[in-house]
Each structure stands twice: as structure tokens, then as C-alpha cells.
């Protein structure tokens, strides 16, 4: 299981928690697992998110591996100007 930290604005979607446990081996599985466990997150994830794995921010890469001890944060999608 991977601990996925969520931004606190998402708490209302996940029973008031700030992190959830997801069975996942990569970023794509993290996102799919989140939606499976909490369907309310679907529009949020569909709108675009980034995932930080051990401090590195992945805006798109679903194949990035995730280990059980990885630090994983869901972030709003990072863009630029």
C-alpha cells in the first residue's frame, strides 16, 4: 500500500482525511486507485493533477514507479507562463 497525501481542499471528498492508502505500483495506478476508492475524486483528477513522488513533481507521467515507502502527494496540475 502507498500513502497518498491529498491537499486539504479534498478532505470533503475522502471522509475528512488528509491521506489515503492505495494499492499501487506507479502513478497511474495511484490515480486509478483513488478514483476507485473515492469516486468523488474523479472530476478532480480528470481536471488535471500532478503527483509528487519523493519530492519530484510528475505532471503527466503515469508510468512513474511508486514504492510502498515513497512519499506521494497529489497536487494541482502545474503549468507555467
Amino acid at each position, binding site marked *: 500500500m502507498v500513502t497518498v*497525501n491529498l*491537499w486539504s481542499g479534498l478532505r470533503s471528498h475522502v471522509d475528512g482525511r488528509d491521506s489515503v492508502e492505495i494499492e499501487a505500483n506507479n502513478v497511474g495506478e495511484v490515480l486509478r486507485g483513488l478514483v476507485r476508492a473515492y469516486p468523488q475524486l474523479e472530476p*478532480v483528477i480528470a481536471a488535471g493533477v500532478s503527483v509528487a513522488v519523493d519530492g519530484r*513533481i510528475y505532471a503527466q507521467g503515469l508510468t512513474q514507479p511508486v514504492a510502498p515507502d515513497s*512519499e506521494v502527494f497529489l497536487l*494541482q496540475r502545474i503549468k*507555467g507562463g
Partner: protein
Amino acid sequence: MAFDEVKTEGFKQVGTRPRRPDGVDKVTGRAKFGADAYAPGMLHAAIVRSPHAHARILSIDTSRAKALKGVKAVVTRADFAEGLTGDDWDVLENVMAGDKALYDGHAVAAVAATSALIARDAAKLIEVEYEVLAHVTDVDAAMADGAPVIRDGAADSSVPAGLHPNVVRYHESGHGDVHAGFGEADLVIEESFRTEAAHQGYIEPHACLAQLGPDGKGELWCCTQGHFHVQKLCAKMLGMEASNLRVTASEIGGGFGGKTTVFIEPVALALSRKTSRPVKLVMSRSEVFRATGPTSSTSMDVKIGMKKDGTITACQGVFRLQGGAFPGAPMEFTAMCAFAPYDVKNVHQIGYDVMTNRPKQAAYRAPGSPMAAFATESVLDMLCNQLGLDPLDVRLKNAAKEGSKASYGPRYERIGLVETLEAAREHAHYSAPLGSDQGRGVSCGFWFNHGGETSVTLALSEDGTAALSVGTPDIGGSRASMCLMAAEELGIPYDNVRTTIADTATLGYNEVSHGSRVTYASGLATIRAARDAVQKLCARAAAKWGIDEDAVIWEDGCAKPSGPNAGEFDPLPIAEITAEMGSTGGPIVGHFEATPEGAGVSFATHIVDAEVDKETGATKVVRYTVVQDAGKAIHPTYVEGQYQGGAAQGIGWALNEEYIYGDDGRLQNAVFLDYRIPVASDLPMIDTVIVEVPNPGHPYGVRGVGETSICPPLAAIANAVSNAAGVRMRHLPMSPPRILKALDGD
């Protein structure tokens, strides 16, 4: 050199300062920008724009316009695709209004004619009947009870119940317990701040030349930061297949985030489709101001607690951003960047995305971050002043480092904030005496940077030179950096690499030139593509020598036998391999296609001295120093240029630039005379210090540099002005009337 090897020293070309490859084009007038394209049989187009901030469109009568001699076609919203959703619908709605005009300057119709003058005359003959609606242009007013609703139902699921329908997105993040943190503080300061909308202010207005025929195949030439993105959006809006539209990026006369979307391109294509003739469409400057993205204006509350020794105990911020008549104000970045430079246990931030009757905001250089720094770093300055602490010492004491938990959640990889702060403290500027009526301000700034989809090819010629094709428009000299990196890897002279910005038919998809990603991502791709080519070169040499591929190394532009075969064969220069490539396996081309994800966040520290005339409220920036971590400066001169440009834009935003709306909801200052960007006589020389703390996510350690440079200036200048004037400035721009008013105690 292995395909993914990291190299941070021993560079032969990277770090030098050669002349840019497109230099002669740019100094002779030969370079072709957006408006410099012409085609046989070309028509000219003009757009009809709403004079109202908010109005229902009752009817559009085009008969008088169509009757004018020389007019060939008129388009309205009915000429674009239906059924788009989400962001795509928003972009189309912004390109051409549907049921309602949502801001002063919103396009409602367009016309193509045989000359630009006829097109403009015809546009005046298009009669639009409006029902004027109540409007709102201020962010706080738009959130208040009773404010006119811009679009009911626009809010997404993030918005808590009970907020005004104009609040369309909500962000909340943080960690720790801010209440407890404030309890540990010796001093807590809470202040409110406002910033006004600033335009990217690129000197080149949007321009394009479109051609779309009855066969459904199209060509588009335009000035854009991302022609692949333009292709995708235009295809959707015209209801055509993306691959049937080939988009070529012209030279681009500045973008700064403002040319990351489409405004006129779909309109020109629609007119071309109706006429089967090429259509040129060029915005006037007032159209640029009225109808293309400025950045958001903000209303912010920031609260910070500090111990007497300078330790920050808690940070809390509320950030309200209006992004015009569409969702998308970058409030989550404002919230996430606000406290990012500091290692703080207790932090909490909230963001609101608010719709108003203003043009759809577009990204502007580190979207959302400069405003955040203004609020945070102003409060830090007040805390330092009241506690008698040195502002750089305090920032160093709290600075985030590798392993620190960022205010937005994850732990940092290797970062260079401490190094910028130390360099700033040691810089002669920081200890230089101040003159009378002068004040000094410092600030840190943070930006994420970005990778994104990237595709390059590097084709070798028979003579051993290289043609590098990248898909990211060159806004500020990136061709030079690409040539340097390719030359470094191939071991050939800089002048033997030619970099071209390829069109959408020639390369795989490339994300927009934004997020400070070009030197990082296209650079990474260039290095990898060059290594791919080198592997192929080595293979040809190995075959020629009859040895194992792994036993060949690449050095100084030559294949050399290594290991047991070292010295057995003479080095084989690149030109000798490429001369025979047709008969040894075919053309040699290096590729790289991927989505690099290790952009590496970056930090800057700025020092500025400002002089305030207390009788008139006039401010002069007398000295400015930028210290920023570049990771690795590929072409240091252009890195300096990015630092200086970011600082200058920040100076304009801090002192004079703002969107001014009248009570009628119309933009009052849609000309460069009254939208006051800095002129040459307004600025001092801008000193730069390049700090290099390698980014672990790039083979040479590169971090993006374009955006972070605009993050500290608003705050640094506000601190300098506040310290010079003896009164805290909480509203940008700090125009002379605002400064005099503040001196009078508001």
C-alpha cells in the same frame, strides 16, 4: 557517454557565450514574425468587439457589411464547432462570444475583405443588438452577495457550499497546526494586500495567416508559444482533424505566457474556410489589451507568526484571484507558492478562483507566484523591522533545503535557496550605504518549473554537421542553448549545429514553450537525441573496425576504440562516418520523445534600492540585483537576460502597470501610453548573480530560469518603497497617487 548519464563538469562548450544563431536575422529585419507573412490572393480580417462589459447578444446584422465592396465573408459563433466542453468550450467562448458578451472587447463577429482598411470599415457596419446586463470587475465585489452572476453553474466540485456562484474553484492545503503555531510566536502580523491585473506586454501583437480549403486541409502561420497546442485547439474549434492542419510557428515577439492559447487563429481559419482564400488577421494594440490575457488581480490576507530569534512558527494565507469571465485564475499556484521558500511546521493556505467581467486571464510568467511573494515577503519585512532582525538572516534561518517539507506538501529534492541568500548577503549591494529618501528591500521567490511532452530530432549531414529540429518556439534565444548542448554532446563546433523550430507536421507533439521548460525539456531531449546519434555513430565505427559496439567511445567528435582495443585504430571523426553513412546502414538521426518530469523547482533572492519623492509619490529604482539558481547556465548571457527581463517586468508591475476599469466596466487604458511598462530611462542597470546548484532531474543540471525571476520583484520593491517612505504599501501598483495617499495615512 551513456544515454542517461549526468554531467555537471568538464564542459567544453556549455557555459560559453557564443553569438545566437538567429542573430543576423534579428538585427537585419529579415526574421519573419507573425505579421510578416503574405500569401497570393490574401484577404485581411478584422474583428467586431463588444463595447459592453456584460451583455446579452440579441442579434447580429451583417447585411450592410456584406454589401460593402471587397468584403468576402463574415463569421460569427455559428461558424465554429458545437459540442465542445470544459476548457475547450471556454477557449472557444473566449475566441468568439456565444449568447453573451462577457467583457469589454469580447469578440462577437469577424469579417474578411480584400484590404485591411475595407475589413475595418466593414467591421463598423456589422450591427450588434445588445441587452446590457449588470457587470462586476472587482474580485471582492464579485464574491459579495448580490453580485451579478457571470455564468451560473460554472463552479466545480471543489467549491464549498454557500459561496457566490462567481467563485468557481477552491483550493486549500497545508500541514501542521497554524493555531498552535501562532501561539508559539512572539509576534504575529496579519495584513491584507491587493495587486492589480498586469498584462504580459509583449511588443508583438497577435498575428496569423490562415489557409483552409474545400479539401479540409489547412495551413496556419502564427506567433505562438506552442504551435502544437494551437493545432489541437484550432482543429477542435473548426471541427477538423488535427493532422489536417499544419501549424508553423513564426518568430515570436514576446509571449511571457500570453501566447500559450488561441485568440484570432480559429477566426482566421473560419474566414479562410468560407472564402477558400488565405486570410491574415493581426490584432491592434488596443485589441491586445482588451481581449488577450492579462494576469489576475488579487485580494490577499496573510498572517505570519515569528519568534524573537526570527524563527517562523506559522503561516496562513487567503488568496482571492479573479481571472476574468472564465474559470482558471491561477489561485492554487498563488497558494502553493506563497510560503514555499520557507521550512515552516505549521502552514495553511486557501485560494479562490473568481469570475468577473474582464478578459480571460492568461498565464503570465510564473502565474500566481509574484503576487503571493508580495504578500508573504511584505509581512516578513514588517516582522523583521519590528523585531529588529536582518531580513536576509531571517530568511536564511528559515530557508527550505533539500529534505525540507514544502508548504505545498512534498519534500524538496536538491534546491539552491540557501545559496542564493548567501550570495545576496555577500553581494556589495547589500552593504552599500543608502542615500536620503532611499530604502532597501529584499525578497525571495519560488517557482515550480515544468517539463512536458517533448520531441526532437537531430539529423546528421554527410559533412558531419547537425540539423536539430525542436518543437518549442524560441522566445528568448533558446536556439543558442540547443546548439550548445548538441555541440557539446557531439563534440563538434557550435556553428556546425543548426537548430530549427519545426512545424507540427515534422515532429511529435511538443508542449507549449511555458513553465520555463524549453532549456530544461527541449535541452534534455537535445542531449538525449545527440547521445542517440552518438550511439549510432559508434556502432558504425565498430562495424568498420570489426569490434564490439560497447568497445567504442565518443570523444571530441570522434569514435575511438576503447578497452582492449584502445589505440588499435585511429580515431574516426564524425565527418568520416557520416560521409559513408548511406552505404553503412543509411542516414544517422538521433531522436528523443518523452515527457521529462524532473524540471526542478527554483528560487531567487532579489535586492533593490528605491528612492521615493515624498512630495509627489514618485519612485525611482536606483539599484537592482538579481541572485537566482539556474541549476546550470547553458548560455550565461541569456540566463542573465532572463533575470534582467523578469526584474524589469516586476518593476513595472510593482510601480505603474495596471488594468484600470471605469464604472461602465470598460478598460480605460488600452494603449502603451497609459498602460505604463518601464521605458529605458526608468530603469538602472540590473546586476545579476548566477548561482548553480544542479537539478538532479536534468543531465546537465539545468533548471528553468525564465519565470522565477519575476517572483521576488513585487515584494522586494514594495519593501524598498515602504522602507524609504516609512509607510507600508499594501496595494500594487505603487503609483504616485497611492504612495501619497499612504503617506497621508490612507
